[in-house]
């Protein structure tokens, strides 16, 4: 469980990035943190594994204050996959890359081997085991980065901009993957601008602007509210925009809260069938 209590953070340069954030993320939740560039999303999640420590207020992971634990201790519980895989890949082979963190956390030889096998298989990377990560494509490098974090099976998984630079098929695969991890009980937190991706995943949405949380809750409520969405410099999901634009639909209620295309399709077909 992550408990954030009245969190303020100011960078050494004097930029006040977070201004009084209070929220709780329970075990097994699936959360999307959204907002414009510079809203403080990444700054906030960097507090979850202790990379940043609060200027004021507190962050507790399973009851442990992050100021009282090292990043390495917290990272065992909170896995953080950075936006750009090129900021972490450095080994000669994909296998070494995945075992790097396992060695840091002190797993023994056999456990490392098992977990590397498991992670390679999970992300469909087994055939690249002995290849240099620098030889892989952008999407594959991103998967190696993800595998290298998933390998130690952290309770909480943070993904910073997981969909950037991924083609549609990769995104779809990523979505299934995340939903599956979440179904297995892992807490998953994604930081993203990609409203279509969030609309299809339907996690709890936390909307941020200028270092504050401006909305927190059900995606159907938040992502269909034009005021909130524009405050976070986002645009309504395409499906919602079309449905809100249909004449006479504003009042129908059933369609005013729809964010993804499948749901819209179901309702529209049913309506057309009713009309004969």
């Amino acid at each position: 469980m992550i408990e954030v209590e009245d969190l303020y953070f100011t960078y050494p340069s004097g930029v006040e990035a977070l201004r009084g954030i209070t929220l709780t993320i329970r075990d097994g939740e699936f959360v999307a943190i959204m907002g414009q560039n510079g809203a403080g999303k990444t700054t906030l999640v960097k507090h979850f594994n202790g990379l940043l420590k609060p200027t004021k207020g507190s962050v507790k992971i399973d009851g442990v204050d992050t100021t009282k634990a090292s990043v390495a201790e917290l990272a065992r519980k909170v896995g953080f996959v950075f936006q750009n895989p090129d900021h972490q890949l450095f080994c000669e082979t994909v296998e070494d890359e995945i075992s790097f963190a396992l060695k840091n956390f002190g797993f023994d030889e056999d456990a490392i081997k098992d977990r590397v096998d498991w992670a390679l298989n999970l992300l469909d990377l087994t055939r690249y085991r002995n290849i240099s990560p620098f030889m892989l494509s952008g999407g594959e490098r991103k998967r190696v980065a993800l595998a290298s974090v998933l390998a130690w099976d952290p309770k909480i998984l943070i993904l910073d901009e997981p969909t950037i630079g991924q083609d549609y098929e990769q995104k779809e695969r990523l979505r299934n993957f995340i939903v599956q991890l979440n179904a297995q009980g892992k807490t998953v937190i994604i930081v993203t601008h990609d409203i279509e991706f969030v609309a299809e995943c339907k996690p709890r949405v936390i909307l941020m602007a200028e270092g504050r949380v401006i909305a927190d809750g059900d995606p159907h409520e938040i992502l269909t509210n034009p005021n909130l969405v524009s405050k976070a410099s986002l645009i309504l999901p395409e499906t919602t925009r079309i449905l809100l634009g249909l004449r006479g639909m504003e009042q129908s209620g059933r369609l005013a809260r729809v964010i993804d295309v499948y749901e819209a399709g179901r309702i529209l077909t049913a309506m057309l069938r009713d009309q004969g």
Partner: protein
Amino acid sequence: MNMFDGFRFRRVSSPIHDMDPRVKFLYVLVIFAAAVLFDQLLPLLVLFVAQMPLILVAGVKRECMRSMRGSSLFAVIIFATNMLSLYLYSGGGYGSIPSIIERSLAMTFRFMVLVESFSIFFLTTSPDHLGLALEQSGVPFDLCFAFTTAIRFVPVMAEEAQTIIDAQKARGLELERGNFIRRVKNYVPVLIPLLVNSIRRSLELAEAMESRAWGASPKRTNLYVLKMKRSDYYMIITSLIILVLAAYIRLYISIPSIYELLSA
């Protein structure tokens, strides 16, 4: 990264910022020469204090303090090695302790004077201006461009290094663990991505430049042409006076040591 902070340019306007970069560079060279000419504490102290008004006029007091603080470790090392070597050199018999201290302090202040003048130069000169100055002093454009690009990317790389450190810490890397050799090895996971990304970025930069017709015309013209103003000429004259004065004092006047002055 703190030592680089002093060299990070902030775009503001002040009499010093607006000065011709070539003139400022001349000034730095003169101070450099003067600092090397003297090895006594008194003149070096004078040089150190005499530059402070420039810092105040330019309004870069905070940044200057930061770069001084960043270089304080080196200052301490210089002081300590001088103390040690002078003490051993004099065999413990000759020079008295106060004079050894004074000489070590002089060497430390020589270094601080250099840091001070270079900070003034870099803090008040934009990289673009600097490139322009080099170019209009006849340095080939290729070299100027390489130089300004290198300076331009220092803050970018500093930021990137921090991100990489964060990413590896999130994978359980502990930089401060182990003995000295182990600690150096701890930096491998940081240095490799940094190096690879720099090389990748430079290749991308080269491609972007080619696609914008780099080197298409052998004779380039500039949008901005540097022109000397009256204040620039004053600065040149002041710098030359400092140089002549310093040379004169060095050659014809014997400089008392501060210790002697105090004990007299």
